[in-house]
């Protein structure tokens, strides 16, 4: 059914989606105790910070947790120009009148959703300040322009993600912000788990190809200190697996998914290609 609709037009959703209890769980493969920690934090209404490299499963984890806790998930991708009113809300003109429109954070606070601020370091510092009062015992959101304060819904949960990499040398979160969160560190899964993930994500992929993909990815991650901004992610491996299942030869699929998007550096791509062709010989 949904496929038929998707073929005709995109489907509109409100950003605050009530949890779909009947829906199947998003696939997530636990790596350590992250589920227990997250559940405990949610029970005690503590904000959570997810750390880890791009494409290692932070967002997927959160989708899974939202499903598990049966709460809506509101995701805001932060960028350089994100201001506090983008989060909290603003007045809009409607005819001769003005109307207040809640921002995504405000809506989540009211609805008792999980609000996920992705890559929070990218946002301007003034917008990180508005979350302070939400992250401690007060659990209040101040709408300065409206002269209001909102006590957060009991189910409201603030989650931020944060990718410590060298691009953030100058853009680190302030320690005073960081220490308000429960920290969960993610890394790429162990080879066994990663293989399982790839095989579940891409049904129809032969097991031996999955093993080789995982081994290739692990070796490629060794190049991190040599000028790669980001290393081969689990997502990239899943992409490669998708291309293979779609009929591309493995070496070509890997190049397309794991080399060309990563680097323009000739020697680095040669090194990556070497890894790939060695595994898929």
């Amino acid at each position: 059914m949904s496929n038929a609709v998707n073929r005709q037009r995109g489907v509109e959703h409100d950003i605050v989606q009530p949890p779909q209890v009947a829906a199947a769980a998003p696939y997530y493969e636990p790596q350590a105790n992250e589920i227990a920690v997250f559940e405990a934090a949610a029970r005690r209404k503590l904000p959570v910070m997810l750390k880890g490299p791009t494409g290692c499963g932070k967002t997927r984890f959160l989708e899974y947790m939202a499903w598990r806790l049966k709460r809506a998930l509101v995701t805001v991708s932060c960028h350089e120009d994100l201001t506090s009113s983008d989060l909290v809300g603003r007045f809009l003109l409607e005819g001769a009148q003005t109307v207040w429109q809640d921002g995504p954070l405000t809506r989540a606070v009211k609805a008792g959703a999980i609000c996920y601020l992705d890559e929070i370091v990218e946002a301007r510092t003034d917008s990180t300040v508005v979350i302070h009062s939400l992250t401690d015992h007060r659990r209040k959101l101040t709408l300065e322009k409206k002269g209001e304060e909102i006590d957060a819904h009991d189910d409201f949960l603030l989650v931020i993600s944060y990718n410590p990499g060298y691009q953030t040398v100058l853009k680190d979160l302030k320690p005073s912000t960081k220490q308000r969160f429960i920290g969960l560190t993610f890394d790429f899964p162990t080879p066994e788990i990663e293989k399982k993930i790839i095989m579940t994500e891409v049904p129809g992929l032969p097991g031996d190809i999955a093993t080789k993909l995982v081994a290739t990815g692990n070796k490629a991650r060794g190049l991190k200190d040599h000028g790669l901004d980001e290393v081969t992610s689990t997502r990239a491996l899943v992409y490669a697996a998708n291309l293979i299942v779609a009929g591309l030869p493995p070496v070509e699929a890997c190049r397309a998914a794991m080399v060309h998007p990563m680097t323009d550096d000739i020697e680095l791509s040669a090194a990556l290609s070497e890894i790939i062709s060695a595994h898929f010989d």
Partner: protein
Amino acid sequence: MAVSFSSDLQNALARLRELSALAARSAEENLPAILAHGHDAAAAWLDAAYRLISHDRDSGRAFIQGSLAAENASEQVLPWTEQALAFTRWAGAARAFEAFMHELPQAYGLLGHAGERRWAELGLRWCERHLDSGRAYFAVPVRELSGRSGIAGIEQILDCAEELYESRHLMLVSYLQGALRVRNLLGPQAVTPWAARGSDIMQSGRARGEAYFRLESEESLRLLLESLPGYRPVEHTRLLSLLVEIWFDETIDLKESAWTPEKGRPFIECDGQSLMLPPVLTDQDETVLSVLHSAGSMIHGSYDPRDVRRMFELSGLPAPREGEAIAMDPLFTRFGEDAQRFKLVFDIAEDLRVDMAVNRDVPNHLKRMLRAAESMGVPPDPAGSYYRYALDTIRLALGLPNDLDAGERELLLRLALPRAGIADAFEVALRLFESTRLPPIDSRESSVLAYLPGRSPNASRAFQPRERSSDSQGGESEGEQGEGEQQEQEAGEQEESESQETAGEREESSEADEQEATGTGTTSGVGTSRKRQEEQAGRGGSSDKGIPYPEWDYREQRLKRNWAWVQEKKLAESNLGEARRLEQEYAVALKKLKQALQAQKPTRLAPQRRQFEGEEIDLEAAITYVTERAAGMSPEATVYRRRELNQREVSVILLADLSTSIMQLLPEGRGRLVDRVRAGILLFAESLEMVGDSYAIAGFCSKYRDNVAYYRIKDFDEPWSSEVKAQVGGLSGRLATRMGTAIRHATACFNAVSSRRRLLLLVSDGRPEDYDDGGDRRYLHEDTRMAVKEAVARGVHPYCITVDTLANEYLPQIFGKGHYLVLDHINSLPRRLPEIYLKLRR
């Protein structure tokens, strides 16, 4: 005499006999064959013999003796007899003539009659000009001279000589050997450009030019190597070291070897510590295989001292002395004539062991090697037999069908065990050799062909022992293991006690130093305290002792107060010309950089939003303003955007390591490291001017703890003037690298600026070291780590850019993950430096 000759021939013989009885006798023996071409021909021949002998005995003798073969090859007499007579025009032409007679049959055989005529004509022309050149010409075997393309090949190579003779008066003798080698190595089409280049060099100096043509000078060799076809490993050291690191998780030094084309097939060599790459290998595939194989042999214990001792024991030879480079030759020379044969068998066994071990780290390594070896083709015998044998051993390792017998298989598969070492390979080789069917082989030239692509002769040069780093020694027999460990332990203890000793010494000496320091302190006590006040008040440092900083001593786990002294200085040298030259050299890069900056300007220069005044309306702010007004609030009228260059949000100090090592020549031979550093600083400054961040440039070097020089090249508020550029142009290296102190001082320099974001960008080429660190690297490492921590605590972000490829060993500990970058390519420094900065400040 069975044959009787006509009377005039008899007379001619008699005339000959008067000159030389010996010559007459051999003439008489050869005469019947000549006579087959008629009486006239015989008479002319005898006459020529007479004239040649009377001209020069050696020539005559060579003529008579060579005639039979010449007649045989040419089936005629008169043409070459006439050519021979031409030599009588010159005195002292005997050696040229002998060479001519020697090659004559070959010339007929390979070039035909017309070709021979041309060959002789060309040679005679050179004899006319310069007898030595003529001799050199005839001395070259015709086969080689023609390069398998007949007389055309000879003409082609001589045409260039002709031109060179006419334009530069270059003699064939100086040119010919080099030209032939160039043709052999690079093909006929390479000769003309090579000669043209030589002609230019000749113009700048005769001696230099001749050396070039004889391929004796550095420049001709370099040029030759540059034009060799194939893959150049040295240009890809970054890729190759990346691969070593990926697969083996180790850093191995890659150097350039002194291979030259006449040394035959190029191989990677190893001295136990680093790999020596030849200038050229066939292709990338062979290069990667070779690097993986050679690195694998280092890692999997081909140079392991314990194994080496065992091999000498097995051969009943005294073990090599410790601490000296080990040569394995005695192990092979024992076999006398069979030395080369045994060596090849041993190499096959050992290479198989290494490749099987590498195959555990690098998937499909053996498969790839087999494929490369099969596509390269089997060389001619006897090397071919060894080549096929080696192929079979690989097939065995891969479980493919092969021609080995059961005994061989059993022996070779022992080497597949992870704990097998080079000594096991040696044992296996000894056993295999007892019953080997491989043919004898003696010459080195043919034996080098026996190696599969990627493999090379083991221990081709003396090496330093290197413990195997693969942790696969688990199952070794108890006794040995125990012994080894004991020895290791002993060695360890010894080392420890030694290091304690040195530490003790150091302590003593440092105490002495301290006393000395306090000594000077008391003699001028008032002076120092005044200086300190000065320094606290502003930026003193004009005193000769300088500004003191503490230093961290990890052994005592404490900061030593006032330990290192920094003197601020201005650079004495300046070189505006060099700066201008670099600006020109990097003009294209700079233009690109500026364009990139221009394109990104709106975001780069992050327009200040919500301002009370500015040049454009901030639409979003304006709407908010209007709506809030309408909602009955009284918002501030901050509705403008303002673009301003000087945001002064970020300030950065570029701190360059000016130690001696930056004066090193670059491996590619194009300038020194310092050139790249200068260029990097220039580009950096230009782009910062564009971006508008406040920046300072400084350099540092040191000699002992009380003599750390900090050169202020540009201060934050100083304009980027031509004087400053000139100083950058004149940068040079001196002394050592006391990095921690320099970082502390630079951190202090940030006190003068108000920006919130402070970046200390270090450009370095090596680890922290100083003359007084007593060889204890850890000391200054720990101190630098501490200095970095202190800087971070004071709101300064240190970030290190290094061109030291071994930096991955120590930078992570010092600067922390993500706070350093190792540039694999020195040449990329100028371009990358601004890029990295812009990325950091994003």
